[in-house]
C-alpha cells in the first residue's frame, strides 16, 4: 500500500480502517498475539515483578538521520523499562493520524517500528488508530505503552542513591538533538551526525551481570544530561559534581553546538543512559559497559555528594567550577 493518503474514512471503524490495519500495521508488526485481532492483547502470567511505561511521540521532523518517529516510539518506551532493569517484552501502539498524511510515509514509519521491535525482541500486541481533520494533527502522533519483567534481586531506584557513589554515562552526549536540529527548516546544516536512538536493555543486562549492586539508571532525553541530573539531585536531596574533561562529546556534535550557541549538556539523547553505582564498582562497571556496542564510549563522569542545596556542579575543563543548571524552557521544541 504505497499510494494515496489518510482520509477521514480510515478512522471510521469501517472497512477502510480494517484494510489500513491489515495492510500496514498487521503486515509489518504482525505476531501471534496481534494477529488474533482482538480488542486486547493477552499476556501469559508472569512470576517476576512487572513494570509498565508510556511515551507519547510528537517529534518534528518525522524522519531524521538515524531514525524516525516509528523507531523512536519503540526505543523510547523500551528504554524507560530498561532503566528499571526490566526485560521489555510487549508494547501497545496508538496512532493519531492527520487527514492527508501520505500512506507511503505511514508504511515507512511502521516498517521502521517493526524493525526496531524485532531488534529489541519486543512485540506490539495491541494497537489503536484514530484520524483527525487536516490541520488538527502534525502528520502522525504515536503513543506506545510497554510492559517488562524485572528479574529477582534487581532493584534500581532513586532511593538507592548515596553520597560517594560514582556517576557514569554510556557514551557521547547530544547526538540525537543535533541530528534532529540539522533537519529543522530554518536551521538545516550539513552534517553526518546521526541520532543515537537505540534500545538499551541489552546493555543494562550486561551492566547488572557485572555489578549487581548498581544503584540506579536513567536515560537523559529531553533537556539533556543537565536536566536529568538536576531532576535526580532534587529528588534525592543530594548533590552531584561532574568533571567536564571526562564527559564524552563527539567532535562534530561539539562543533555544531558551538556554532548554534548550545551546550551539549542541554541537548537531547535517545540511546544513552546515566548510571549510579558504589564508588568501588565504577571501574568494573565501566569495563562491562565498554565491552558492549552501545557502551563503547562510556565514561565515569562524576560523583554524588552531600549537598543541602542539591546542586549539580562541574569542574570545568578550564580549571574553574560552575553550576550545571536546569534550563528554564526547551532549547528546541518537539525533539522526541
Amino acid at each position, binding site marked *: 500500500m504505497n499510494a494515496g493518503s489518510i482520509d477521514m474514512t480510515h478512522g471510521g471503524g469501517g472497512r477502510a480502517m480494517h484494510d489500513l490495519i491489515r495492510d500496514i500495521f498487521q503486515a509489518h508488526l504482525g505476531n501471534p498475539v496481534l494477529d488474533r485481532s482482538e480488542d486486547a492483547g493477552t499476556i501469559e502470567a508472569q512470576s517476576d515483578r512487572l513494570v509498565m511505561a508510556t511515551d507519547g511521540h510528537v517529534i518534528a521532523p518525522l524522519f531524521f538521520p538515524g531514525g524516525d518517529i516509528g523507531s523512536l516510539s519503540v526505543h523510547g518506551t523500551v528504554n524507560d523499562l530498561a532503566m528499571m532493569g526490566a526485560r521489555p517484552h510487549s508494547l501497545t501502539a496508538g496512532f493519531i493520524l492527520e487527514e492527508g498524511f501520505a500512506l507511503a510515509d505511514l508504511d515507512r514509519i511502521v516498517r521502521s517500528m517493526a524493525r526496531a521491535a524485532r531488534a529489541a525482541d519486543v512485540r506490539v500486541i495491541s494497537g489503536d488508530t484514530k484520524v483527525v481533520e487536516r490541520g488538527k494533527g502534525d502528520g502522525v502522533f504515536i503513543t506506545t505503552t510497554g510492559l517488562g519483567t524485572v528479574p529477582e534481586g534487581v532493584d534500581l531506584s532513586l532511593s538507592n542513591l548515596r553520597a560517594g557513589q560514582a556517576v557514569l554515562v554510556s557514551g557521547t552526549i547530544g547526538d540525537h538533538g543535533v541530528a534532529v536540529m540539522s533537519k529543522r527548516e*530554518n*536551521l538545516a546544516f550539513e552534517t553526518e551526525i546521526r541520532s543515537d536512538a537505540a534500545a538499551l536493555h541489552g546493555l543494562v543486562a550486561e551492566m547488572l551481570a557485572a555489578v549487581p549492586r548498581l544503584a540506579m539508571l536513567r536515560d537523559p532525553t529531553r533537556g539533556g544530561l543537565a536536566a536529568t541530573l538536576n531532576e535526580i539531585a532534587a529528588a534525592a536531596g543530594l548533590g552531584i559534581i561532574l568533571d567536564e*574533561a571526562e564527559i564524552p562529546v563527539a*567532535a562534530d556534535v*561539539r*562543533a555544531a553546538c*558551538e556554532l548554534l*550557541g548550545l551546550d551539549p549538556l542541554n541537548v537531547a539523547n535517545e540511546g544513552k543512559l546515566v548510571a549510579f553505582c558504589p564508588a568501588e564498582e565504577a571501574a568494573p562497571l565501566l569495563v562491562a559497559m565498554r565491552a558492549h556496542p552501545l557502551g563503547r564510549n562510556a565514561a565515569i563522569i562524576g560523583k554524588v555528594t552531600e549537598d543541602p*542545596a542539591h*546542586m549539580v*556542579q562541574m569542574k*570545568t*575543563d*578550564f*580549571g*574553574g*567550577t*560552575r*553550576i550545571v*543548571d536546569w*534550563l*528554564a*524552557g526547551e532549547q528546541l521544541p518537539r525533539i522526541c
Partner: protein
Amino acid sequence: MRYISEFRDPVLARNMSQKIARAVEPGRDYHFMEFCGGHTHAIMRYGVQDLMPKSVHFVHGPGCPVCVLPVRRLDDAVELAERHQVILCTYGDMMRVPGTARRSLIRAKADGADIRMVYSTLDALQIARDNPAREVVFFAIGFETTTPPTAVAIKMAQAERLKNFSVFCNHVLTPAAIEHILNSPEFAPGGQARIDGFLGPSHVSAVIGSRPYEPAAATYEKPVVIAGFEPLDVMQAVLMLIAQVNSGRAEVENQYTRVVTRTGNRKAQVLVAEVFELRADFEWRGLATVLESALQIRPEFAAFDAEARFALSEKASREVKSCECPAVLRGVKKPTDCKLFGKTCTPDTPMGACMVSSEGACAAYWSYGRQRLPQDAP
C-alpha cells in the same frame, strides 16, 4: 577545534593564573569592567574568577543589547505584532524579555500574534518574499556587531524592490556607552563605584576596530584592552590591564589580534554609514538618555523603516519596581544585590531583561555561579 580548544587549554590557564598572581601589586585592588555581556557569560561559564587573585574584581557592564533596550521599545514591538498584525521577526534572545505588565513577545505569540524567531536578517527577508500579502518587520537590536547584517537586509530589500519589508531599528553604539559610564557620578573619583580599566568587546571591535576607544581612554585616563571571548583571552587581557594600571598607562591595546585590527572592517563601516545615521539621543535601560548613542534609518530608506511605516502609540511603559537591572547594567550593583534575585526573579519568572538574556549578568550568575554567591567586597 581550532581557534577554540587552544584558548580553553587548562595548562595555559594555570600558567596565566600564576602570571596574574605575580603581576598584581600587594595591597592594591583592581576593578575591571567587562563591557560585553558575552564576556560576563564566559567568565561565569568557565569559572574564570576562580583563577584570579582576590584583588581582581570584575564589574559587569551594559554590553547586553537585549538588557539595555528600554521597556517602551519592547512594548512598541509587541504593539507592531498585535495591533498592526505584522509578521514580527526577532532574534531568540528577545522572546522572553518582559515588557510592561510582564507582557513579552512569547506571551503575545501564545495569544495569537505572528512572531517568528529568526537566526539572521536574511531569514526575515525570506519570510517577506514568501508572504507578499503580509507586512514583515525585523526587530533589529544589538551593538555594532549586528548592525551590518541589518544594513545588508535593507539594501537587499531595496534592490529587490520589496514592498512589505521593514526594520524596527534599535541598534546602539558601544563607545558612546563607555563614555557615558565613565562620565557618570558613580565612577567619578570619590563616587560609590570604581573602574580601573575596561575589557573591550570582541566582535563589536571586529567591526569598528580598536581606534574608536582611543578618545575615551585618553580623556578619562582608563586603559582599554580588547579581549576575545574564550576564557584564555579574558585572562590574557586582564594581565595586560594589570600591567597598564601598574605602570600608570591608559592606552587601547588589542588582545584579540586574530580578529580585531585598529581600523576594523572598513566595508561594514561604509555600508552601515550608508544606511544609518545617528539619533540625537536614545533612552537606554539603566543608563537613561545618552546622546548620539543609537542609530536610525536614513530618510532615503524610509520605505524600510518600521517607525515611518507604522504609527506607534505613546506609551506609559513601566519597569517592575525593585528590579535592579538599571543598577546592574551600570555596574554599580551585582545581581545578588537585587532583592528580587533568586526569589521572585528567576529564569522561569524573569522580572527584567538581565535575567532572561543569555548575556545578562543576572542570568549568568544564576546559571553558573549562584552556589558561590557574594564573596567579593566591592
